[in-house]
């Protein structure tokens, strides 16, 4: 019984405790295994496998059906069975051959072994022999032995060779017998390749199509624990070479596992599958293996951002596109924002931000509409003026110069304009600095009114006079209206009195907003100023983008009359407050006290006249609000812009963005912050209340957010946010970037130049641009009725020309010359190519752009040589005659036969202007070069029977039958021989004044009833 005394616990109880805890422990281990086995991505791969099987089965079904229908296939199958029959007849022969082959193979094996062994012995002897030669002893008769053995070896070698050749003979016999069947099989294989490919793919994924062993293997490979060896369901990943996740001192290799769940991302055919199985859109462009951005090279997160290594919905840092998606994700996928990753996935609407890091040179970016709009808005709204971004470093200020403001308008207008620009022009790009959320209470309004008065005072007191020629023609409003509509003003300007409720911002829409909306100018500008400006904008502001349209004095007067007739009565009646000295004192004191003590400030203010105070405050305020960033203002030359540089704003850490009191209202993402900041810049000066109203933070006036309101639409803000998110500091290796060839650089530089100067407001290049077309249509409606304005081909022919293939088209010397000295080319056009004051270098950049875009790099070309006595020239004469080019083209002073409506360039110009190579391309198919052009492909009798040609076209033409290019060159030769007047403008003018265009109009009175 000693035992019992030495025990404490009841062993049965302990056993029970042990049993229970062991069971629990076991259960926990099971749980661990389940947890480890049931990875969240697995169910997606299982689901996708079903989809894939379904799809391959369908494809296979379709392919088999097609095969059965294919007569060729059926024939081949028959041939094959016939061949097989033939083979059975010769079966005995074949059997014999097989037997022979077996014997021969055995012999070969034996001989080969003998040979190899003998050779090994020989090598040993060879060494022995050489060593004996060296004088270190060794066997005396090594030489002899070596020689003997060598003969032996050679004999074996011959044996082997002989056996081999015998085998070859036998085999060729076999081949002969099997020939038909092999041929039939081969052609059948090519035909059924697609089919067997599909079958093979199916056997890999579809258990039903697998062999029994594979079926078992298919199950076993994915069993728990065993599945670490070679599972079907596995984490898939792309290691993106060269691209790294940005760390501070070290990049870590980028690994993207997105395709673990997005299994179908690079497989065509799942375009309509639900997420996450969907195929990536535009597979030929992105992700596809042969696209410019293959998945294996670029991965996913290099564009989309996100946590590529993650394999769960949450740990991959997905970002919802909107609140609704967020709620759905929360409910269905347990999503929450991933705060522990600096660059979460870009939501769908900002995805194009990812394009910018590699393609920052272009404008617009093809296939990236939102980003392009962002670039366009950024430039147009002048964001770059306050926020430095390298791309726009060289651009002049976006706003007009205010050096000679007093000559342009008056103080009252200026005051009212600065205070509330959109009350004058509803869609102006000049932003609102005042009446914002943070400066709108009555006290603020009183103060800001005085601020604007002070700034106005400063602008006018520093303005220097602008000398204009004193022209004083009486203008005709109506003529002015037609001129504004027809000259091309509307490539850059709108005249839109009321806001357009359906305004849909786009790169193209913004092109017509290059210059201001020309409404209510009568309330704004001085007539003398306007005349001077219209005649030569550069004389007022050398950096202006407004070009010189070479207007006559009369034209300028007409346009001025038209523009000045429009006045904004409501705006005119707005009151301008009077100066309130005590408020001005306070404003001045705010600035003075930055430098001086309180008592010094008081003394300074006592010494100052009111006008001095206004000027002082005005200058300081202009500096404070950063007006000088956008406008040239006296006294602010060379000052740095006031905004934060945005060069790498997209890489800014989110902790550097201050959400102030908005942490509940604005989702904690960079893009939502940027959106709020652009949408309502003073947001973070405000304090939101639960009922949707807000209070304003206690801030001294000078500490308030100064960023103004631009009145942008949601689409524009989204576009800007896309751009900002794209301004990142990621280092991209050269290998991943578009190759920086001289041509690439020229094209990107040119694209930007062309965008900045709004060439595409008028011209269309490769389908992009041509914003002026609506204005052309309006003008056509004006002069030829709505019937004609609706005819898009007519609108095209009266709009500035398409510039497709411009580089291949024109001779660069001529183009440079012409740019600097514009003259008439298309006699029917009213719209005018303006004269720009670009430098040689800038024009050369444009020409380089055209040429590089067209794959050329020529600077000098041999002139096209021809002889007027040649067959070619004479044939050309005949071809042009038959083709009746004179119907539409000027031949020097010779007018076209048809009405002005159909007119086309003077062919005398061609030899200096166009390149012969391009002309051939052009003649071959004008519509493929310039879609919509009225130029027909000249008819050449190249395919006709030679006798017919001789009879009808003459012997010279007949020489070229069968050679299209040569035949078309006859036209080139002929044109090079064409002499005559180059400038036909006077003839054109006279003709149009007397006979008009000859539009086919539908007169209203054709209907004969005037009821409606």
């Amino acid at each position: 019984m000693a035992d019992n005394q030495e025990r404490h616990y009841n062993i049965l109880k302990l056993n029970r405790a042990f049993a229970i805890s062991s069971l629990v422990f076991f259960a926990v281990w099971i749980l661990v295994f389940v947890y480890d086995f049931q990875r969240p991505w697995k169910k997606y791969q299982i689901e996708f496998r079903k989809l894939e099987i379904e799809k391959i089965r369908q494809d296979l079904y379709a392919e088999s059906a097609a095969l059965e229908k294919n007569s060729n296939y059926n024939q081949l199958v028959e041939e094959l069975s016939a061949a097989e029959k033939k083979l059975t007849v010769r079966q005995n022969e074949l059997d014999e051959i097989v037997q022979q082959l077996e014997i021969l193979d055995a012999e070969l094996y034996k001989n080969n072994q003998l040979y190899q062994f003998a050779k090994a012995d020989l090598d040993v002897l060879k060494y022995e022999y050489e060593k004996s030669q060296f004088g270190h002893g060794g066997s005396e008769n090594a030489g002899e032995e070596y020689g003997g053995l060598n003969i032996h070896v050679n004999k074996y070698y011959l044996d082997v060779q002989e056996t081999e050749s015998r085998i070859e003979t036998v085999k060729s016999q076999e081949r002969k017998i099997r020939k038909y069947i092999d041929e039939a099989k081969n052609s059948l294989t090519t035909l059924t390749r697609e089919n067997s490919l599909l079958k093979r793919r199916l056997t890999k994924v579809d258990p039903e199509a697998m062999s029994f062993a594979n079926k078992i293997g298919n199950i076993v490979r994915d069993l728990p624990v065993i599945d670490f060896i070679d599972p079907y369901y596995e984490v898939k990943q792309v290691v993106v070479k060269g691209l790294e996740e940005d760390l501070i001192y070290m990049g870590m290799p980028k690994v993207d596992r997105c395709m673990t769940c997005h299994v179908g991302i690079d497989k065509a055919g799942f375009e309509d599958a639900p997420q996450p199985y969907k195929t990536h859109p535009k597979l030929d462009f992105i992700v596809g293996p042969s696209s410019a951005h293959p998945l294996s090279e670029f991965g996913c997160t290099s564009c989309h951002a996100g946590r590529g290594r993650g394999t769960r919905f949450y740990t991959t840092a997905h970002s919802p596109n909107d609140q609704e998606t967020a709620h759905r994700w929360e409910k269905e996928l347990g999503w929450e924002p991933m705060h522990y990753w600096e660059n979460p996935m870009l939501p769908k609407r900002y995805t194009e931000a990812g394009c910018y890091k590699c393609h920052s040179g272009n404008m617009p970016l093809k296939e990236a509409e939102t980003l392009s709009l962002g670039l366009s808005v950024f430039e147009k709204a002048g964001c770059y003026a306050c926020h430095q971004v390298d791309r726009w470093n060289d651009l002049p200020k976006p706003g007009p110069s205010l050096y000679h403001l007093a000559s342009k308008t008056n103080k009252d207008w200026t005051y009212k304009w600065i205070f509330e620009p959109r009350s004058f022009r509803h869609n102006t790009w000049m932003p609102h600095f005042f009446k914002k959320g943070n400066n709108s209470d009555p006290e603020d309004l009183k103060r800001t009114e005085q601020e604007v008065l002070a700034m106005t005072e400063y602008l006018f007191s520093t303005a220097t006079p602008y000398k204009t020629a004193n022209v004083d023609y009486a203008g005709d409003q109506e003529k002015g209206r037609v001129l504004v509509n027809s000259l091309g003003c509307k490539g850059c300007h709108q005249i839109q009195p009321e806001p357009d409720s359906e305004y849909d911002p786009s790169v193209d829409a913004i092109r017509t907003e290059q210059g201001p909306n020309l409404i209510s100018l009568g309330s704004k500008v001085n007539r003398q100023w306007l005349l001077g400006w219209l005649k030569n904008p550069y004389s007022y502001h050398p950096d202006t983008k407004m070009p010189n349209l070479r207007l006559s004095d009369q034209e300028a007067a007409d346009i001025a009359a038209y523009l000045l007739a429009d006045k904004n009565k409501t705006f005119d009646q707005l009151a301008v407050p009077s100066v309130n000295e005590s408020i001005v004192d306070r404003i001045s004191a705010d600035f003075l006290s930055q430098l001086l003590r309180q008592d010094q400030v008081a003394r300074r203010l006592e010494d100052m006249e009111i006008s001095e105070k206004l000027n002082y405050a005005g200058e300081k305020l202009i500096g404070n609000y950063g007006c000088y960033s956008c406008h040239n203002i006296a006294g602010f030359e060379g000052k740095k812009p006031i905004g934060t540089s945005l060069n790498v704003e997209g890489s800014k850490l989110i902790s550097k963005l201050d959400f102030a009191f908005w942490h509940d209202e604005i989702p904690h993402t960079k893009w939502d912050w940027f959106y709020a900041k652009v949408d309502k810049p003073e947001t973070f000066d405000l304090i939101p209340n639960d009922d949707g109203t807000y209070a304003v933070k206690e801030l001294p006036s000078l500490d308030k957010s100064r960023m103004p309101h631009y009145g942008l639409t949601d689409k524009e803000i989204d576009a800007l946010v896309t751009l900002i998110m794209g301004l990142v500091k990621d280092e991209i290796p050269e290998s991943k970037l578009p190759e920086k060839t001289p041509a690439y650089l020229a094209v990107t530089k040119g694209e930007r130049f062309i965008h900045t100067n709004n060439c595409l407001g008028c011209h269309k290049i490769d389908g992009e641009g041509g914003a002026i077309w609506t204005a052309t249509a309006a003008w056509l409606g004006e002069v030829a009725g709505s019937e004609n304005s609706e005819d898009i081909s007519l609108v095209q022919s009266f709009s500035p020309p398409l510039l497709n293939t411009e580089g291949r088209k024109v001779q660069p010397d001529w183009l440079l010359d012409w740019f600097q000295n514009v003259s008439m080319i298309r006699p029917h056009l009213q719209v005018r190519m303006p004269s720009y004051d670009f430098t040689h270098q800038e024009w050369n950049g444009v020409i380089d752009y055209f040429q590089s875009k067209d794959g050329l790099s020529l600077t000098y070309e041999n002139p096209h040589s021809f002889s007027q006595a040649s067959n070619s020239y004479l044939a050309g004469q005949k071809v042009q005659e038959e083709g009746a080019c004179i119907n539409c083209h000027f031949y020097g002073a010779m007018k076209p036969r048809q009405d002005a409506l159909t007119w086309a360039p003077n062919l005398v110009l061609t030899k200096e202007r166009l390149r012969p190579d391009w002309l051939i391309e052009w003649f071959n198919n004008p519509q493929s070069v310039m879609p919509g052009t009225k130029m027909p492909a000249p008819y050449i009798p190249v395919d006709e029977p030679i006798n017919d040609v001789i009879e009808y076209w003459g012997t010279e033409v007949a020489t070229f039958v069968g050679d299209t290019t040569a035949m078309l060159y006859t036209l080139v030769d002929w044109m090079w021989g064409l002499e005559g007047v180059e400038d036909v403008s006077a003839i054109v003018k006279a003709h149009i004044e007397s006979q008009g265009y000859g539009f086919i109009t539908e007169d209203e009175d054709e209907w004969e009833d005037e009821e409606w």
Partner: protein
Amino acid sequence: MAEQTKKSFLEKAAESQVWKSIFRGGGVPRNRRQRMMSVLNSVFLHLHPVRLPKHAVKLKFTWCMGGLSFFIFLILTISGILLMFYYRPTIEYAYTDIIDLAEQVPFGIMRELHRWGAHAMVITVWLHMFRVFMTGSYKPPREFNWTVGVILLLLTLMLSFTGYLLPWDQLAIWAITVGSNMARAAPFLGHEGPGASLLAIGDINFITMASDARFALIGGRFMGEAALLRFYVLHCIGLPFIIMIFMSIHFWRVRKDGGISTPV
């Protein structure tokens, strides 16, 4: 004899020479002697005496905290060795390897086990100390073993602290930065500590930013690759080695100082 002739395979195996050579005594101990022998003959069990005062087997008295501390240390050792197969202590890979453990590596749960085990060990060690204090078990003759225990507590914290850096994420480096910045202020040894400026001969200052205690700890002026490597080596080799020595002493002294403390 006659009644028991058939023996099961297991019984036969238990009588074999191989079995007996490994498990002395063999079989389930059923009487007092066997029970005593099973403790005496086992290298693991003979940490314990053969017999104990009754209260020493009561959970209420010991809370089993010392035993658990040791056991968790074993779990940490095993899971830590498994982690070492995947983890590379370079700033290029450390972080991504940790992500991989969570996202992709089979039984990546070892990392959770290791991390939570580490936290649990700190707690069990504290509670063990608390229990020892509350029962007055530090008193002579066990005063030296208490001191060893304090050293073990310190080593436990240092192990946890060095391991904290290894994931190389923000949480890690800033926690360690905050911790190791203290070294900068160590009197005399830290370059911002009192008295450091006195350790100078003429103009030559011996304690500078690049030669003080913090520099020695993290292998540089900033938290970087060197710090990671130093902490890794300390965490995986240095400190476990030391703690095992002190644990041996601790266990040895428990027996040598009279076993578990008892009321006199």
